[in-house]
């Protein structure tokens, strides 16, 4: 039995596949690909499949990964080849590697957030206010959480979770690149960050697009 890391895109309409649905789709994709999955040996055997860091709904990415356990006998190249033509639209597999880093080592993720405004002036205004907010450490993120059984909104000061950020205005569009805390603890969803900006700036973009650039371990060491 070997554990392999499968790298794939999640683009276009595929960004609307929730994590739970993605797991089911991937299990089926592996079966279609004819890859001999290793099954757990319990009462109800099931394949082993985990995602080091699930992607939020509505976010596109060109570097997603999942770990699966496969029976011995296939090389990484063969596994990669068997996925060809077996994936749904927007979910192509582009590489299969050994898992070098452990999922626990993930510390941050970088995103590109594209916001469209009615005009250039508003976009610039929004960018300026955002920069000030980050410098002044006054952004607060809101996350849905649970206290016992009760549903509550948790407020998280974002200053410790924003590493680098950059704002560029191109016409009526603002492109923000930001690296946020990620991983098992302290995962900040990019939409939480964007909503915090909206609330602080008192402005709402016409639409927002999210794209994940990559995952990092310590500093800007790429997760692989």
């Amino acid at each position, binding site marked *: 039995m070997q554990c392999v890391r499968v790298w794939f895109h999640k683009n*276009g*309409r*595929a960004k*609307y*596949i*929730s994590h*739970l*649905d*993605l797991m*089911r*789709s991937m*299990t*089926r*994709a*592996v*079966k*279609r690909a004819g890859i001999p999955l290793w*099954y757990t040996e319990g009462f*109800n*055997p099931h394949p082993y499949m985990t995602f080091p860091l699930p992607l939020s*709904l*509505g976010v596109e990415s060109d570097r997603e990964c999942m770990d699966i356990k496969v029976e011995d006998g296939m090389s990484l190249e063969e596994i990669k080849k068997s996925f060809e033509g077996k*994936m*749904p*639209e*927007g979910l192509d597999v582009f590489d299969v590697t050994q898992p070098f880093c452990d999922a626990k080592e993930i510390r941050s993720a970088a995103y590109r957030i594209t916001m469209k405004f009615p005009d250039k002036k508003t976009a610039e205004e929004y960018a300026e206010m955002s920069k000030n907010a980050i410098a002044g450490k006054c952004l607060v993120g809101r996350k849905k959480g649970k206290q016992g059984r009760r549903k509550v909104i948790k407020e998280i000061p974002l200053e410790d979770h924003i590493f680098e950020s950059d704002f560029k205005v191109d016409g009526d569009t603002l492109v923000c690149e930001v690296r946020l805390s990620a991983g098992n603890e302290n995962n900040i969803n990019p939409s939480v960050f964007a909503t915090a900006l909206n609330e602080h700036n008192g402005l709402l973009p016409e*639409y927002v697009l999210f794209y994940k650039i990559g995952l990092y371990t310590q500093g800007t060491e790429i997760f692989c």
Partner: protein
Amino acid sequence: MLSPKVENLILSVQKPGRYTGGELNSVIKDKDKVDIRYAFCFPDTYEIGMAHLGMKILYSLINAREDAWCERVFAPWVDMEEKMRENGIPLYALESGDPIGDFDVIGFTLQYELGYTNVLNMLSLAGIPVRSEDRTSLTPLVVAGGSCVCNGEPMADFIDVMLPGEGEEITNVFLDLFKQYKNEGKSKREFLEACSQIEGLYVPSMYDITYKDDGTVEKIEPLGSAPEKVKKSVVRDIDKMFYPEKFVVPFIDVVHDRTTAEIFRGCIRGCRFCQAGFLYRPIREKSATTVDEQCRKIYESSGYEEISLCSLSTSDYTKLDELLDKLLDWTIDEKINISLPSLRADNFSKELVEKLGRVRKSGLTFAAEAGTQRLRDVINKNVTEQEVLESARKAFKSGWTSVKLYFMIGLPTETDEDIAAIAELSQKVVDEYYKNEDRPKGRGVSVNISVASFVPKPFTPFQWERQDTMQELKRKQEYLESCIKTKKIAVGWNDTRISFLEGVLARGDRRLGKVIETAWKKGCTFDSWDDRFDFDKWLEAFEECGVDPAFYANRKREFNEVLPWDHMDYGIPKSFFRRENEKAFRNETTAHCREKCNACGANKLCGGECDAMRQSLVSQKRQS
């Protein structure tokens, strides 16, 4: 592709995966290279519609044509509908994201009567006039198929062409004709007249219905050269019939998300309440090799973890053992579960249970339908109490701890004794569990009984019978509840108001068209959903249209009454149903088709041949 308008709002509705498309095996074509754009509409949510086998078959069949592109459309849930109307987004097809108002053909499948308001709502969301007479050009043409089309009269005002019977062959005939008329620039009227000349196509507007003073139908008159009787379509050889090699694999969790293989069509049983048992006659089986190959192809292109063998009565398949051996050969290694719905309690073998238990245990359901032998004889459900208990015993011996039983209340001739017997039979099933010495220690049994309210349907021996009123059904439900003494038996009911409405629409005539339209205008959609069903609005609609619903549901018809569906020919003459009806009231049963041919006449649909007839001759010869 999704339009930017849709993308903007899609994350603000429940289950966006219902509206995105882009699933594996969905078919994308170049719209400029096809002659016919076909929107296959299912008048319910994505999760329900994606389970429908007929849609999978016709989707692949139409897309196998180079000149046509078939796309899927489902009814958006209330939250999405609201957003679409707010933002001026017309109903679009999932594959292209294009508004279906621009399509050539809009095809609905009418699976149950309570989807009718959704048909109107989907048309209106697409910006298409709901009434056939208000759509004057050839496109978009609105067509419908599915089992409800056997009496599509309540929908006659809205649908241009109906396709009664099986769609695998007639769909291509229809599309060829459509393409020819469209290319020649012919009018809708010309096309409809041409359709009415083709066996298997029904054009409601080519028939004139007159009514008597007492409200019953006086006459159904064909106009122009339309035929007196519209024959349903039948596929003679279902072993060689088109079957998809690929299923669209949804991302989100849908009902019955699995490989489905049809093993036979039709039914030999002749249960007198069952519409499907008569609509799909004569019985025709696929070979085990064909089914095995079809399962394998769909598995390879989908990766589904379950195979379901589909038919009206799985254990009546003569090649079941052969097929299971073939399937188990490869499914065990692939960890694929096989499920057999619609098993009968009287031929459920221990070997079968063992074979199925080898992979994973799924639920077991037995349909007893009625509590006493007398009533089971009336409905011709030829299952004895001993057989039900024997099946339960076998199931418990093989490790099951929960079984489901199906019953009906409101059947013709039913008394309180019959209802009490439902509780007694369920109790006996519970007792069987405790008689089993090998039962798992410390584990109780659960017997779930699902008690449906009987709705008389066209093309059954009970098509003339009155349906119990809501009050009668309610009282029977309460009485049954009082007869159940243990928590080990859990009862599930239907809403009696929904059954009533279903009964009205099932045997209705064209005068219900305006009622359906009025109810829809009042906001009725998704009527089969308990949380959406608004009975008061329906009652208002009946009132405003001056239509008495009880006339359709609770009235016993005379044998000589002209029924609204008398011009539809499903291969079985009224005289057969009448004979069966009279036998029912004498508590007489009718043997199943393989024991003895009862001359229902359906064999004529296939040129006189019938699988069951051949087999019944063989068994008779053996006996002599």
